[in-house]
């Protein structure tokens, strides 16, 4: 069961601010999705290894040879706020 408290915690972990309406709506929806997730409870996975990669590749490595980086103007082009070549982010404290 996803309680409102848990949902608030998850929204915080994900840094997503929900409106009051959304909280109400989501609480209902998310619990339905959770029921849906719970269907895999019925599967017996004893002794089964998890699969993260289906492509079965290993040792994909790159040589230590430098390439030209992006020009500063292109790096900053999409920045909503910038100053003197830096990205401007909100304050920390």
């Amino acid at each position, binding site marked *: 069961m996803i309680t409102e408290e848990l949902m608030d915690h998850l*929204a915080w972990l*994900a840094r*997503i601010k929900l409106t009051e309406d959304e909280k109400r709506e989501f609480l209902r929806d998310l619990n339905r999705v959770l029921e849906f997730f719970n269907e*895999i409870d019925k599967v017996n996975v004893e002794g089964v290894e998890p699969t993260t990669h289906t492509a079965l590749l290993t040792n994909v490595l790159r040589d230590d040879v430098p390439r030209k980086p992006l020009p500063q103007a292109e790096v900053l082009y999409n*920045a909503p706020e910038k100053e003197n070549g830096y990205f401007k982010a909100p304050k920390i404290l």
Partner: protein
Amino acid sequence: MSVKAYRLEALEIVRNIKEGNLSITDVIEEFLERIERVEKKINAFITLRSKDELLQEAKIKDRLLKEGKARGLLFGLPIAIKDNISTRNLRTTCGSKILYNYIPPYDATVVKLLKEEGAIILGKTNMDEFAMGSSTETSFFGPTRNPWDLERVPGGSSGGSAAALASGEAPLALGSDTGGSVRAPASFTATVGLKPTYGLVSRYGLIAYANSLEQIGPMGRTVRDVALLLNVISKHDPYDGTSLKVKRPDYLESISKLYNLHRKVKIAVVKEMFEEGVSREVVAIVGSVVNKLVDEGFIVDEISIPIIKYALPTYYIIAMSEASSNLARYDGVRYGFRANVYGDWNEVFSETRGNGFGKEVKRRIIMGTFALSAGYFDQYYLKALKVRTLIIREFKKAFEKYSILISPTMPTPPFKLGEKIADPLAMYMSDIETVTANIVGIPAISIPAGFTKGKLPVGIQLMANYLKEDLLLTMAAFIEELTGLRNLIAEV
């Protein structure tokens, strides 16, 4: 030419340009005319390049053609690209407010390859926000409508690309497929969509939703057009660590080569994929195609893969978990939308993401965060990865005996706009046929199977083993000839 360029197959357009029967400028002009007429009804594009820009590019390419310098498999061919594929200096939004003004400084590898082969990029097509959806209704830029019935959805999440094809706005398109997003719209629009083997096509530049599941897929109105596009985009890419190094065959050539071997192919239909939730009309239409194959002398067995029942929750747990991670980067510092609030970074990040993401995206991120969080990780994410292993095992067994698996692509014909959007679970159910190919990593294709009584398209899905795109395309071409359903354009 008597037939309008927009009605031709891609291969035909390319040939006519090469042979001098069509000028590239004429081709572009005709497509632009078509777009002008139908786009306002369809809303297939988020961003279209300007008329001037396109005609300028066409002019330059016409000159190169005249000078004998035309190089490339797609020279002069216009192409539509799903808006989650990075295009340099051309806005790329993923159908989301949070990227509403993002202009990438780099091209996705597939885009680079297209340009190298001489293709002309028309614009970026509409999609479900961040590819999360099966109907192209969650886009910040409004829904796309199905050219076959404007009250209905074109499928998703690559609905814009499919609608552009089906309405004659483009001859070829790129989509992406995480849980069926190339095949579902193909099925709903009577076009062809292929999800390649995981790792066959580079993902560098594909804006990630679920990175262990997704591939960029070629889309077109005929099987051979899709094979042509696959030839261009399926190169190994050192910028993508999951890109396979294997040698790729010429997929177009292999269709002609393998054509006579088809009778040695053993086919199976998966029982579970014709049962729960699948409409009777769909079963009938797909079934009739299977019968045609039997009449042609193919052996078609029915097999049962019970674990497929768990494919859908397995898919969603993995996809949502990966989504919660892949979408963490959208915080308004380096690009995109930033909430106009003053506060510390936690406050600004939370407002930006709360405001910039749509509801479905937020739901999936939160559920994904849940599945990865301490205390729930083992029971959900880790377990889903283990069920994934079991599903892979079952398919491995199936492919030991059979070369092709057949099922409907979608459990229903195209549904009405707004019909399923209010109920997330109802929408997730649309994916029951398509998610297994992503979970396992095998290639799958959807081609037209027929139309319902209400004249709505129904697709048939073929799946093959890893790296068997050549067999898949050949089988698909064969069925295409049987049904005669190819190069279909809706009268919008």
